[in-house]
C-alpha cells in the first residue's frame, strides 16, 4: 500500500516531493546535500509548511524503522536536525512535536545506534532556546527512557558505555529544557527526580575514584566520554539549578539511593556525592542539605551503629562547607540537633561500646568542624550554648549526677573542647563571659577526675593565645629553654583578671584539694596557671598569683587528705610556677631565689622538682624549710621591685576559701582565721596549724556536720577554744623541725587511717552519701564522716 506514493510522486504536494528528494536511492550515500538545501530554503520561505514537513519526515522514518531500513532513518533524523537548527524559533512550535515524536520513535527501537542518534538530536534540541513555551511537549517518556538507558546492561561494554552516556546526556537535555520553562511540566516533581537522581548516582558510583579516599579523577579532559565523570557534571548542573523548594526533591533520592545501595559503609562515595552537592548548590541553601542529612540520621536511629557513624562522619565532612553561609537560628538549630543526637546516643547505650564511641566521636567532630568555620562571635555563642546544655548539679550534690549524666557531661565537654580548639581568643573578657565562665568553673570541681581534666583542657585552649600550650604542658624549672612567646597583657585582660582572678584561682585551688586528683589533674592545673601567668603576667597580677602558689604550698604541707605523691607534685608545680612568674614578670631577685630553691631541692629532694610522678616510693613527706618557698623572702623580693606586699601576707587561699564559702565554720570555733596578719613566719613554720584543723569542704557540708554544730553546746566550744589557744601557742613558739617531729608520726597514722576510710567510702555507692544530706534519712554510710572528723580533731 505504500508503493503508490512513489509512482504518483508528481501529484504529491511540493513539500513532500522536496522531502522525498533528500533521500538517496542507496542509504549509504547519505543525505543529498543539494536537495536538502532546497528543502531548507523552502521551509524558510514558507514556514507554515514546516510542521507538515516535520510530520511527513516522521512518518517516513517510522515506516523505515519498522522495515529496519536504519540508513534512511538516520538520514531523516539528520534532515530534521538541520531544519531545527536553521529555522527560527517562532516557527518551530509544531515542528518540534514531530521532531520529538521522531526522537521518541528512535528511542523506542531496540537498536542502540538509533537510541544514541536520537539522544544526540535531542541534546541539540535541548540547547535551542525556544521563544514560545512548548506546553504540549511531554517529557515523562524521555525521563523514563533516559533513566533506563543510564542503567544499560548491554553485553558489549563499549555499547553499554555509549548508551549510558547517551542516557546521561538525555537527562541533562531534559533538565536544561524544562528548568528554564515554567509552562512545561515540573521536572522537580518527585516522579522525575526519583528517576534522574538515582540514575546519575548509579553512574557516578561506578567511577574508579569514588571507592578511594581523596582520589581525584586522573584526566578531566575525557569528561564527555566517561559516564561517571559526565554524570557528575550533570549532577552539579542539576543541583546548581535547584531552588529552595526543590532541594529536598534532589536530596531525598540521593539519601534513598545511598541507603538502597548500601553506600554508607564505607562512606567514600557518600562523602563524594555530598561534596558535589554542597559545592554546586546555591550557597544560601547549603544548610538545607545539612538539615536533610541530619533528618536522615534521625530516621536511621534504629540502624546499625556503623551506618549511623558513617552518616555522622559524612555530616562532619560536609558541615564545614555549610558553616560559612549559615546564619542566625539555623546555626543553633544544627548545633542543637547534633547535641540531641549525642544525648540520645549517650542515653541509649550507657555501657559505651566501641562503635557507640566512634559514633559519638563522629558527631563531636561534626560539631567541631561546623564551629571551626563560624565567625568567632558565633563560636562564643556556641560554647555558651553547649555549656548551657551540660547537666551539672549543685556543688553539694555534685555526686548526684547519674552515670548517664556524667557521660553526657564528658561528651558535651569534649564537644566544647572541640569548639574551643577552633576558637582563637582575642580578649579574655569576651571569651569568658560570666555566664560561660561560672558554669565552667563549677565543672572544674566535678567529682570525676577525667571531667576536671577536660575542663582544664578547655581552659588551656581558650587562654592560650600565643601557642605556648605545648611548651607548658609539663612543669619545668628551666623557663629559658621553653622559648615562651610573651606579650604584655592588654588593659582589658588585666581588668578581666582583676575581676575574675580570685574566682578562677579559688576554683583551681579547690580543684587541687580534691582527693581524687591524679598527676594529670595536677599537671593540667599547672598548665592553666602557667598559661594564665604567661598571658596575664604583670605587676598588677603577680601578687595574686604568688598568693595562690603560697597557698598551694601550704596545701601540700598541711593537707591530710591528699596523698604524698600529689603533695610532692604540688611542691613541684609551686616551684615551677614561682620560677615562671619571676621570669615572666622579670623580677630578678625572685628569679635568684627561685633558682636557689631549685638548686637546694636538686641536691636534697629532687622529688620536689618536676617531672611529676604518680609514685615516689617510700620517701619521707617531711621537708626542711630551706627547700620551701618562704613567704617572707618572696615579699622581700617584691618590695625591692616596688610592689606592695601586704596583700601577699594578708590572705591565703586556704583560709579564703573557708571564709568565703563556709563562713559558719568560724562561728563553730574552727580556728580558720587565726593566722591572718600573723606575721611572716606562720607560713613556713606554724602557719600550717589552722589549715590542719580546717575541715575539707567535701566533709564540711554533710548533714552530720551541720547537725553536730547545732547540737554541740557552747561549753564544749569553750573548751575547744581554750585547747586550740594552747595549741596555737605551742605551735607558734616551737621551732619548726620540732614541730615536724611531733606531728609527723601522727600524720602517717592519720594518713593510713584516712586511706582506709576512703577505701571504704569508695566502695560504697556514691549516691547514698548524698541522700544523707537530707535530714530525714541518716544512712549508716555516714559514719565514716565522723571518723574523718574525730581523728582530725584529736591529732592536736
Amino acid at each position: 500500500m505504500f508503493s503508490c506514493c512513489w509512482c504518483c510522486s508528481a501529484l504529491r504536494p511540493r513539500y513532500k516531493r522536496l522531502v522525498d528528494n533528500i533521500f538517496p536511492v542507496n542509504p549509504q550515500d547519505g543525505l543529498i546535500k543539494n536537495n536538502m538545501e532546497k528543502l531548507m530554503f523552502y521551509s524558510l520561505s514558507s514556514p507554515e509548511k514546516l510542521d507538515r514537513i516535520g510530520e511527513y519526515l516522521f512518518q517516513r522514518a517510522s515506516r523505515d524503522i519498522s522495515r529496519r531500513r536504519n540508513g534512511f532513518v538516520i538520514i531523516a533524523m539528520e534532515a530534521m536536525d538541520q531544519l531545527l537548527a536553521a529555522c527560527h524559533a517562532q516557527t518551530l512550535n509544531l515542528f518540534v512535536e514531530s521532531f520529538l515524536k521522531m526522537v521518541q520513535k528512535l528511542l523506542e527501537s531496540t537498536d542502540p545506534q538509533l537510541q544514541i542518534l536520537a539522544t544526540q538530536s535531542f541534546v541539540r534540541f535541548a540547547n535551542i532556546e525556544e521563544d514560545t513555551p512548548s506546553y504540549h511537549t511531554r517529557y515523562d517518556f524521555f525521563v523514563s527512557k533516559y533513566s533506563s538507558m543510564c542503567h544499560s546492561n548491554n553485553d558489549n561494554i563499549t555499547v553499554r558505555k555509549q548508551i549510558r552516556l547517551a542516557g546521561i546526556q538525555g537527562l541533562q537535555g531534559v533538565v536544561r529544557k524544562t528548568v528554564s520553562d515554567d509552562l512545561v511540566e515540573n521536572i522537580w516533581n518527585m516522579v522525575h527526580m526519583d528517576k534522574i537522581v538515582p540514575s546519575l548516582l548509579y553512574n557516578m558510583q561506578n567511577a574508579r575514584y569514588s571507592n578511594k579516599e581523596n582520589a581525584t579523577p586522573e584526566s578531566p579532559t575525557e569528561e564527555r566520554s566517561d559516564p561517571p565523570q559526565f554524570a557528575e557534571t550533570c549532577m552539579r548542573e542539576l543541583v546548581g539549578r535547584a531552588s529552595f523548594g526543590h532541594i529536598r526533591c534532589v536530596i531525598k533520592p540521593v539519601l534513598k539511593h545511598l541507603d538502597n545501595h548500601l553506600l554508607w559503609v564505607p562512606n567514600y562515595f557518600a562523602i563524594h556525592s555530598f561534596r558535589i552537592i554542597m559545592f554546586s548548590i546555591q550557597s544560601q541553601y547549603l544548610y538545607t542539605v545539612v538539615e536533610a542529612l541530619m533528618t536522615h540520621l534521625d530516621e536511621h536511629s534504629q540502624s546499625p551503629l556503623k551506618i549511623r557513624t558513617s552518616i555522622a562522619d559524612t555530616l562532619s565532612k560536609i558541615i564545614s562547607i555549610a558553616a560559612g553561609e549559615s546564619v542566625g537560628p539555623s546555626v543553633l538549630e544544627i548545633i542543637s540537633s547534633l547535641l540531641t543526637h549525642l544525648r540520645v546516643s549517650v542515653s541509649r547505650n550507657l555501657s559505651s561500646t566501641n562503635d557507640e564511641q566512634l559514633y559519638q566521636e563522629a558527631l563531636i567532630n561534626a560539631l567541631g568542624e561546623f564551629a571551626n568555620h563560624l565567625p568567632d562571635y558565633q563560636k562564643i555563642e556556641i560554647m555558651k550554648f553547649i555549656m548551657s546544655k551540660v547537666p551539672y548539679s549543685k556543688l553539694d550534690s555534685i555526686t548526684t549526677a547519674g552515670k548517664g549524666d556524667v557521660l553526657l557531661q564528658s561528651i558535651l565537654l569534649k564537644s566544647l573542647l572541640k569548639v574551643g580548639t577552633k576558637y582563637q581568643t582575642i580578649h579574655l573578657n569576651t571569651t569568658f563571659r560570666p555566664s560561660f565562665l561560672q558554669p565552667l568553673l563549677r565543672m572544674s570541681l566535678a567529682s570525676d577526675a577525667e571531667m576536671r581534666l577536660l575542663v582544664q583542657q578547655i581552659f588551656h585552649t581558650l587562654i592560650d593565645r600565643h601557642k605556648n600550650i605545648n611548651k607548658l604542658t609539663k612543669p619545668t624549672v628551666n623557663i629559658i629553654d621553653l622559648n615562651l612567646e610573651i606579650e604584655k597583657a592588654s588593659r582589658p585582660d588585666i581588668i578581666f583578671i582583676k575581676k575574675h582572678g580570685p574566682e578562677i584561682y579559688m576554683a583551681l585551688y579547690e580543684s587541687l584539694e580534691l582527693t581524687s586528683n591524679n598527676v594529670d589533674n595536677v599537671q593540667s592545673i599547672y598548665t592553666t596557671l602557667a598559661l594564665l601567668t604567661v598571658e596575664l603576667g604583670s605587676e598588677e597580677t603577680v601578687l595574686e598569683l604568688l598568693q595562690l602558689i603560697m597557698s598551694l604550698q601550704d596545701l601540700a604541707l598541711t593537707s591530710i587528705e591528699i596523698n604524698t605523691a600529689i603533695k610532692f607534685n604540688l611542691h613541684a608545680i609551686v616551684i615551677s610556677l614561682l620560677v615562671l612568674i619571676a621570669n615572666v614578670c622579670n623580677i630578678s631577685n625572685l628569679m635568684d631565689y627561685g633558682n636557689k630553691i631549685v638548686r637546694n631541692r636538686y641536691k636534697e629532694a629532687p622529688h620536689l622538682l618536676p617531672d611529676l610522678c604518680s609514685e615516689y616510693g617510700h620517701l619521707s613527706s617531711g621537708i626542711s624549710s630551706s627547700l620551701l618557698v618562704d613567704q617572707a623572702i618572696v615579699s622581700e623580693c617584691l618590695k625591692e621591685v616596688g610592689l606592695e606586699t601586704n596583700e601577699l601576707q594578708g590572705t591565703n587561699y586556704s583560709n579564703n576559701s573557708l571564709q568565703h564559702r563556709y563562713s559558719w565554720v568560724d562561728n563553730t570555733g574552727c580556728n580558720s582565721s587565726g593566722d591572718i596578719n600573723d606575721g611572716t613566719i606562720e607560713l613556713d613554720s606554724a602557719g600550717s596549724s589552722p589549715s590542719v584543723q580546717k575541715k575539707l569542704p567535701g566533709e564540711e557540708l554533710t548533714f552530720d556536720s551541720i547537725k553536730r554544730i547545732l547540737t554541740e553546746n557552747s561549753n564544749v566550744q569553750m573548751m575547744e577554744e581554750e585547747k586550740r589557744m594552747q595549741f596555737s601557742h605551742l605551735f607558734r613558739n616551737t621551732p619548726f623541725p620540732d614541730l615536724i617531729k611531733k606531728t609527723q608520726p601522727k600524720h602517717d597514722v592519720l594518713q593510713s587511717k584516712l586511706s582506709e576510710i576512703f577505701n571504704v567510702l569508695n566502695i560504697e555507692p556514691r549516691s547514698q552519701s548524698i541522700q544523707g544530706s537530707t535530714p530525714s534519712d541518716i544512712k549508716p554510710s555516714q559514719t565514716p564522716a565522723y571518723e574523718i572528723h574525730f581523728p582530725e580533731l584529736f591529732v592536736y
Partner: protein
Amino acid sequence: MKGLRTSIIQEKKRTEFVIMEDYKFLFKVVLVGNAGVGKTCLVRRFTQGLFPPGQGATIGVDFMIKTVEVENEIVKLQIWDTAGQERFRSITQSYYRSAHALILVYDISCQPTFDCLPDWLREIEEYASNKVLRILVGNKIDREDREIPTHVGEDFAQRHGMYFLETSAKEAENVERLFMEIAAELMEQARCKELPRYEQNTTSLNGKTTSIGDAGICGCSRLS
C-alpha cells in the same frame, strides 16, 4: 490550550492522506517481582519472541515496546521491566506511578518469591495509582519442581483483587495471552472512560486509524 491542540490535530487530519504505522492507544505496563523470577524473559519472549538463556540480572529498568492489534485497533504497549534487586528499589518504584498495568511475577518453583508477594503489594499500594490493573503471574511452569500449586496462586490473586495467570517464558506458554489480555482489558477500561470523545475524530482509511497518536496518548494518560 487543549482546544487549540485538538483543532490543530483536526486540521492536520483533514488534509492528510496518511498511511502510517501509529497507534490509537498507548499503555504502560510495568513488571515487578523478586530477582530471578523471569521478568526479563517474559518481556523478551513477548517482544522479541526469544528466550535468552543465561540472562543477567536487570540493572535499574529496561524498556521494550510492542505494538499489538486488539479488536482492529492498534495498541502500543510500553513495557518497563524493572530490576528485582533490592538496591534498585528506589528507581523502580518511581516507574510504578505512571503504570496502567502492573504485572507481579513470582516463580512457581521458588517459595520465597511467593512469600514476598505481600511486600510487593504493599509497595504497589504505596507507589502506584490505585486504579492500576494488577496481574499476578506465576512463571516457570515448565519446571518440574513446582512448589506453589496453581490454586494457591489463584487464591492469593483472588483475595487481592488481581488477575491471575501461570506462564512459561521458556515454552512461550501463556506469554502472548498475558499481554494481549492486558491490552484488551486496558482498552476496555479506556473506552468506557475516554473513547467517545475521540471516536468522532477517527477517520478510517483501509480500516486503519489515522494520525491521532496524540489523542491516544492523552486518553490513556488520563487513565492514571
